[in-house]
């Protein structure tokens, strides 16, 4: 029996509140693509991706049309390239990067992730060559994203790798200086990187995954923001407490997650591909009204970064998980609110006003995913300072047994407060201030490892 109020509530959610499926990401195993020569390996990689993803975008569009729910991004993630190209030298990895880029173009996806390595405990000779290839690989490709996992709660933090990350990011930014250091926006450093995250730039097809898997990232924060505004208006601010707000977020997340899983499972069924996970992350876009920062404002801070921001984010993140986990059969990936500065117009605005500082942002990443994401910093910040910021962020993830990441973008020739814009989904923001630049060199030059933390006595 049709219940008109419920039907209209859902129609409103889809039409007016812009419910969409943020991303459907096809993970493809490439471990069986290794051949005797670099060229043959690259050819096989291109061929396999073309074969597995041939109907991917078309099927997503077809299902999206049938259900009337847009699938905004179609992406591909692959087995970390350092495993696929074990024994390759740096130039070989650049060739592999170009093959992956071509494969993405052929499959008509805008981004392919998995130019990656996992070095949380130690660096193999291949890993070192791979990391050395990253600046050129990302400079010379368009659709490729790279990531390195440098730490985990089980293995600790590989500080040799962290030291290399600062230099890699600097080089990436300098090689793409004409474009504001955009290369660094395609590179992310992780602690506890999941193998089933559908969101870029950090998506990989983990070695623990099946041959081909579809992972789905659900809708953005706009739906939650609009729904909260409506509830506050309807019930009156005086009649609501924070637990009512949390309940509202849970319910809307339940619906959003259900829509995402319905679409994802339909695509996977039509393609004959295993369905992986729903990632419950709230991923903002630079579009007005699609911001996590805006939710924090609706819930009571006048500027993002003001005291209370961390507590609100904790409530939001937890409520999203509670609603989503009950809705879905399989939740995974990052599953938390993202606070990527450049990609979230309200966060970027707070940076411009001096309300949101790097230190507060770091504190906020303790209670959500995914970390210091899309943070533009002055171009003259040295590599050791960048590595030290990364080390701090990795330590948060390692100790709290959660995923954290850093996507820092030193913008060549620009300094604090100046604007940088990459356009499209990558957004724009004033450059953030980094305090205490040049004061961490001695720490980073130690190298070695920060040992894995104790897994008891958790106070």
């Amino acid at each position, binding site marked *: 029996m049709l219940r008109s109020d419920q039907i209209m509530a859902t129609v409103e959610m889809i039409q007016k509140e812009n419910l969409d499926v943020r991303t459907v990401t096809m993970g493809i195993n490439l471990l069986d693509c290794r051949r005797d020569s670099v060229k043959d390996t690259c050819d096989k990689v291109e061929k396999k991706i073309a074969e597995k993803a041939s109907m991917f975008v078309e099927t997503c569009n077809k299902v999206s049309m*049938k259900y009337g729910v847009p699938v905004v991004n179609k992406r591909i993630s692959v087995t970390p390239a350092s495993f696929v190209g074990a024994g390759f030298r740096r130039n070989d990895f650049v060739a592999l990067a170009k093959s992956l880029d071509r494969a993405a173009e052929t499959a008509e996806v805008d981004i392919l992730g998995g130019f990656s390595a996992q070095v949380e405990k130690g660096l193999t000779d291949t890993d070192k060559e791979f990391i050395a290839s990253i600046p050129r690989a990302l400079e010379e490709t368009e659709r490729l994203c790279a990531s390195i996992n440098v730490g985990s709660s089980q293995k600790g933090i590989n500080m040799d790798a962290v030291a290399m990350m600062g230099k890699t990011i600097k080089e990436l930014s300098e090689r793409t200086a004409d474009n504001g250091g955009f290369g660094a926006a395609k590179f992310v450093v992780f602690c506890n990187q999941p193998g089933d995250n559908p969101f870029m730039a950090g998506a990989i097809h983990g070695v623990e995954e099946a041959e081909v898997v579809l992972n789905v990232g659900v809708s953005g924060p706009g739906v939650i923001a609009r729904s909260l505004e409506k509830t506050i208006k309807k019930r009156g601010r005086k009649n609501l407490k924070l637990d009512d707000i949390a309940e509202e977020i849970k319910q809307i997340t339940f619906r959003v997650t259900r829509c995402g899983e319905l679409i994802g499972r339909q695509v996977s069924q039509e393609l004959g591909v295993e369905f992986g996970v729903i990632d419950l992350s709230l991923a903002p876009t630079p579009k007005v009204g699609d911001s996590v920062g805006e939710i924090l404002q609706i819930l009571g801070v006048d500027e993002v970064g003001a005291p209370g921001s961390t507590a609100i984010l904790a409530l939001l993140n937890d409520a999203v998980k509670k609603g989503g986990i009950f809705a879905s059969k399989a939740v995974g990936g990052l599953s938390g609110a993202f606070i990527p500065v450049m990609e979230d117009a309200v966060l970027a605005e707070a940076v411009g006003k001096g309300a949101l500082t790097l230190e507060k942002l770091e504190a906020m990443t303790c209670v959500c995913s995914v970390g210091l994401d899309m943070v533009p910093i002055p171009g003259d910040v040295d590599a050791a300072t960048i590595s030290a910021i990364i080390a701090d962020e990795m330590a948060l993830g390692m100790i709290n047994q959660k995923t954290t990441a850093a996507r820092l973008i030193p913008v060549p020739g620009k300094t604090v407060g100046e604007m940088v814009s990459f356009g499209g989904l990558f957004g724009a923001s004033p450059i953030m201030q980094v305090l205490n630049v040049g004061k961490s060199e001695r720490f980073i030059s130690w190298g070695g490892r920060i040992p894995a933390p104790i897994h008891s006595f958790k106070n």
Partner: protein
Amino acid sequence: MKKQLVISVMSKDRPGIVADITGTILDLNGDLADLNQSVLGGYFTMILIAEFDDSITPEDVIAKFSHIESETRIEANIKELTIPLETLKNELPKETFVVTGQGENRKGLVKIMGDFFNERNINILDLVTTLDRKLYTMIFQVDLSCIDSVADLRDELASIAEQEQLDLVLQHNDIFRATHEIGTPFDQDMRE
């Protein structure tokens, strides 16, 4: 021998009306099968299927209903069911969609949509409409099994929406099941 009667009843709504109607059927030794009831504008309406002994005629049932005391007379329509009930109990078709339409109230809105569906041989499975001040809302549950291209239908709906100043939205029924029900429609699809 038994017979199945389809009975539709309408009367002014009041407490006890369900008890009176079902009590009458029981008095005639009838056995209730499916039943649907609704109240609109203070009027109660019910459609039901019940099994009776072969000797009971529709006239007997109507005569018995006339003894029920109510503010308005109980109006009943009765037909004998010729198709076995079980064959009527199909699940919703796989391609069940929901079309919602909203616009400023005026005469003929449901007719516009009824014609639109009729021209395309689309069967309406369920329909609810409401008037809230000046806003008229229509919700059609329709079977699109006969439609080749949902994309084309969306275009056609968009053009009639513009022409008739209506806000028309087409969504698959599974979206509503997924967002309103605890169980998931995709589990059912997988089992099939």
